[in-house]
């Protein structure tokens, strides 16, 4: 049977879209379920009748109201925003300097150190939190959100450094050399030439740092006990699961709201991430 290129191409496209559709359903179902449950009344959530995939007994904003008025959700949100912002900035500053020196300065042992940095990332935090608990205790930071400023970067910095080493390697060395010959010192070159060109790599690292910090669960769970210092992830769960009673509506409302900042950040940064900013600098 002879098939034209066009029909074969169409067949491939159908398969592609089919696969994408399956993935879409798979990944979008949880957020859909979250949104759905958060707008349902408690009676409907607990009811075994009707179709669970639709709201049939009228939507309500009560769960959102309760979240803001009857829980410390806003405190958690504030804490998380502060910690995530600071952790992201701190981690990026350290990672950029580390990645730059590891990839460009070519000092003795740079290769081994680079591998070492990556290996530290491979140690799971479920092992690390026990010694960290000791250290944080010594520092007198238990039950303080600031402890997370020290702990979160231990996982974020190695990975971001690794991402950035990879990205920096794609920036032609002549670019820094040109800046040095042009009269810049290393810091000026880094700030005015190198980092503007490395924006896509920085965006990738920022997204990673932000997500890890925003979604961190184990460390706040282990180190923070009081509501005033707690973060969104742990706070929402501990407040809205009382013993064996799950306040599903509130939980889902809290989870949905907690998802929004990362989603907005991704949407905003995606353009920078994709556009290749180095084009035109060199021949290739």
């Amino acid at each position, binding site marked *: 049977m002879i098939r034209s290129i066009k029909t074969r191409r169409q067949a491939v496209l159908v398969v592609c879209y089919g696969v994408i559709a399956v993935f879409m359903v798979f990944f979008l179902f949880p957020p859909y379920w979250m949104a759905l449950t958060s707008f349902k009344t408690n009676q409907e959530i607990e009811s075994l009748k009707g179709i669970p995939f639709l709201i049939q007994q009228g939507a309500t904003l009560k769960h959102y109201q309760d979240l803001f008025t009857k829980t410390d959700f806003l405190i958690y949100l504030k804490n998380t925003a502060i910690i995530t912002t600071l952790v992201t900035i701190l981690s990026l500053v350290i990672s950029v300097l580390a990645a730059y020196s590891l990839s460009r300065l070519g000092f003795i042992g740079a290769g081994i150190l680079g591998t070492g940095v990556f290996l530290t990332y491979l140690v799971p935090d479920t092992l690390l939190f026990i010694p960290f608990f000791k250290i944080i205790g010594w520092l007198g930071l238990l039950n303080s959100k600031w402890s997370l400023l020290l702990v979160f970067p231990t996982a974020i910095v190695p990975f971001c450094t690794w991402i950035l080493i990879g990205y920096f390697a794609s920036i*032609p060395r*002549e*670019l820094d*050399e*040109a*800046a*040095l*010959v*042009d*009269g*810049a*010192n290393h810091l*000026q070159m880094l700030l*005015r*030439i190198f980092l*503007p*060109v490395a924006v896509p790599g920085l965006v990738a690292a920022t997204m990673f740092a932000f997500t890890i910090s925003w979604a961190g669960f184990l460390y706040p769970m282990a180190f923070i006990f009081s509501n005033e210092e707690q973060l969104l992830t742990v706070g929402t769960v501990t407040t809205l699961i009382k013993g064996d009673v799950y306040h599903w509506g509130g939980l889902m409302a809290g989870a949905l709201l907690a998802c929004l900042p990362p989603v907005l950040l991704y949407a905003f940064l995606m353009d920078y991430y994709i556009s290749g*900013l*180095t*084009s*035109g*600098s*060199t*021949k*290739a």
Partner: protein
Amino acid sequence: MAQVVLKDLNKKFDEVYAVKDVNLHIRDKEFMVLVGPSGCGKSTPLRMVAGLEEITSGEVHIGERLVNDLPPKDRDIAMVFQNYALYPHMTVYDNMAFGLKMRKFPKPEIETRVREAATLLGIQELLKRKPRQLSGGQRQRVAVGRAIVRHPQVFLFDEPLSNLDAKLRVQMRVELKRLHDRLETTVIYVTHDQVEAMTLGDRVVVMKDGLVQQVGEPMELYSKPRNKFVAGFIGSPAMNFIETTISDASGALYAETAGLRVRVPAERTSRLAPYKGQAVTLGIRPEDLQEATGGDPQDLVFEALVEVVEPLGSEILLDTKVGTQTIVARVDPTVSTKHHQKIRLAFVPDRIHFFDNKTEQAIA
């Protein structure tokens, strides 16, 4: 304006010498070209002058200053890179102004200098564009512009034309030469292209394996190569090398091989006498072989089988076979011959080179 002196300069990467015992005196306002095949270590001395490469041992002087330990920014040099290395996030204007800004020049001065350089290079219209909106030739001009606005003591060019297409390369070559005439600045220029080296350089340094092979004016390298490498590297098509044995008969010396017997010119016999009975390499440039006329002495003439004819319009290149050796001759376009035909060729006697087979040095 300044001279550049390299003294006993060495560069080791791991245990390999990229540059070995290089001594060069580049005069004030001189256009000095470093040429050699890729990987010969010609870029490394340039980068050492720029301060981008640490010096293993030796000294680099710019002007009267020893610059070994100075960072690039304090050496008063400007460099143009092979891949241009323009700052992609800046406009052409900002690219050119960057070095001046770093040196805290007043704004009006920066403006004047950038416009001046842009006019000189014919890129006034492009000042507001970003590098990605430029063609290869335009980018190269911007890279040159970025170097000249600073009025440095020394220009360093690292294969600046290698990424351009052939036609543009020839055009930019002429422009660079003109620019040097105008700016009267010391230039060190690295290339692997011997044509660029010959046409641009006041003097040329031929390098191989990190060693300087010969330093001299272009025509000197061409007519008096010091060794077999320089002889083969400079000139296109390359010099023919013919394996011969020196013999003597009736008071004269002859270089012989199967199908060819050529008399050593009288003034060369004393230098070649010690090689009697030994193998030496005879070198002859394609243009120093001509179609034999009846008037040529018989001991300078040989018969060759034409294998390939390459008519270039102004001349014809003949790939010929003599015995087992291939010899290229560049003859007048009036010569009529076809492949598989035999042709009689004559040596221009005072253009014959001899090289010692062991040392590869010229016997002269």
